[in-house]
């Protein structure tokens, strides 16, 4: 029994590692992957930070919007890696060979997410160091930061899974969601403003997005009381629920793609 379990774990680790390995090589070899880590996040942070200086913002208000800029950079990088789990294969038209192997949705999502988290952690450290030097930004503490970062990684995982689901259902024409879904979720989750400033009908949407709660949790340490209660717990509970639902939906989408021939069309 123990031998079977060990073999199964090794098998799963091997398949998961395959996607992490491939994403890592793509990230290492392609210039656009490099710009995703350095160029866009720093440009975003600089423009927000300088705007804060121009507006003569108080220290905690500046920290509020800088948190948003840092989150935007990290979220985008991590969710892109999860989306790339299918997109790399679609761009190289090799998806049929990948799905010919005995893999499932856990393998390609988790493997790509691991590399995404590594890249995201690099972006986070760079942006925090940069904003500390340029705008005197300081973190509230190691533990709250780790909880917050975990929340951002989970939010990115959900967005990436949603992109993969849409691709399996509708094909390459929806690949643009890899760049637009995260921006849309940031807009509703109050990336640069408290969600109380959103029009009333959007508050429910904001509540349903885990990122809202993780941002509120972190910003509470800078003296901004959360709009919704139990931020961290709500964020984690919602994330857990969405991740479970999306794994089930990805399984369904793959079987549907097998029926419609979508996998083969994506390889042509």
């Amino acid at each position, binding site marked *: 029994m123990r031998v079977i379990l060990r073999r199964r774990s*090794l*098998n799963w*680790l*091997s*398949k998961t*590692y*395959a996607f992490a*390995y*491939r994403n890592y*090589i*793509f990230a290492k*070899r*392609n210039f656009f992957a490099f710009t995703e880590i350095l160029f866009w996040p720093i440009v975003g942070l600089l423009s927000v930070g300088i705007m804060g200086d121009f507006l003569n913002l108080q220290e905690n208000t500046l920290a509020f919007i800088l948190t948003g800029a840092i989150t935007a950079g990290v979220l985008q990088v991590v969710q892109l890696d999860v989306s790339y789990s299918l997109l*790399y*294969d679609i761009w*190289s*038209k*090799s998806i*049929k*060979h*990948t*799905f*010919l*192997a*005995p*893999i*499932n949705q856990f*393998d390609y999502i988790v493997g790509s997410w691991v590399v995404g988290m590594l890249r995201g952690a690099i972006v986070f450290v760079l942006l925090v160091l940069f904003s500390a030097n340029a705008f005197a930004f300081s973190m509230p503490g190691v533990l709250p930061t780790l909880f917050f970062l975990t929340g951002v990684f989970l939010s990115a995982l959900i967005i990436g899974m949603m992109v993969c689901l849409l691709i399996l259902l509708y094909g390459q024409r929806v690949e643009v969601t890899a760049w637009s879904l995260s921006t849309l979720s940031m807009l509703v989750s109050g990336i640069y403003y408290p969600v109380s400033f959103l029009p009333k009908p959007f508050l429910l949407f904001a509540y349903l997005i885990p990122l809202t709660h993780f941002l509120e949790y972190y910003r509470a340490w800078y003296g901004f009381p959360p709009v919704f209660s139990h931020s961290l717990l709500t964020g984690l509970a919602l994330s857990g629920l969405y991740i479970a639902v999306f794994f089930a939906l990805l399984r369904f989408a793959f*079987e549907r793609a*097998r*029926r*419609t*021939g979508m*996998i*083969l069309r994506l*390889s042509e």
Partner: protein
Amino acid sequence: MEHAIIAKDVHKTYRSGFLGRRQTYALRGIDLAVKKGELFGLLGRNGAGKTTLLNIFSCQLLPDSGSVSILGTDITKHNYSRVKNRLNMCSGSPNFPWSLTVEENLKFYALLYGKCGRECAKTTSYCLETFGLQEYRKTRYDQLSSGNKQKLALAKSLINDPEVLFLDEPTIGLDPDIAKKIRTFVQTIHREQKLTIILTTHYMKEAQELCERIAFIKNGQIQAIGTNREILDITHARDLEEAFIELAE
């Protein structure tokens, strides 16, 4: 003799356009049985349904109706995942992740089949050696010649030591010398590893040279099935090319 593949009354229709109103009938009641260790050829015009059938056999496409059993597993049911470990496929004009080198590509696919550590390294280097790709191991996929891309495709298709191998026009668009090498590889692996191989091709000479039995498909239906000799007898043709023309008309 035991069968590697049994297909019964397989139908497949592709739906496209608004609400799937446009329908293309790809397969109309295919019945086929391929013995274990057999090198079997599927011939037919473009759009006859050969590739659709291979895609169904390789678990990438689900038929609308009928049953397909691969190595004893009904792949139209939900428990087909395990059988995927025992089969593989090589397509003509292959595509693989372009940023990865030949060696990295093989490693990626070996890992996908659960081969890790020493086993992964051993399999990768065996495939590189068998297909003469050692000197290209550090070459990126997008920098390979068509012949070497095809060799990589064949090497990848053996990465999991499959029992059933699907070859979809493996020599299409290749120079005659490379095509001949590929045919020799196919014969060798079939002979040495006792693989069940299903081959689709447009080259009748290739089918005649490699296949033990052949099925002609036209409009999603099998027109004729048998050994080379039997096909020639049925069609009263002198060679497979004549038989093809006769059956395709």
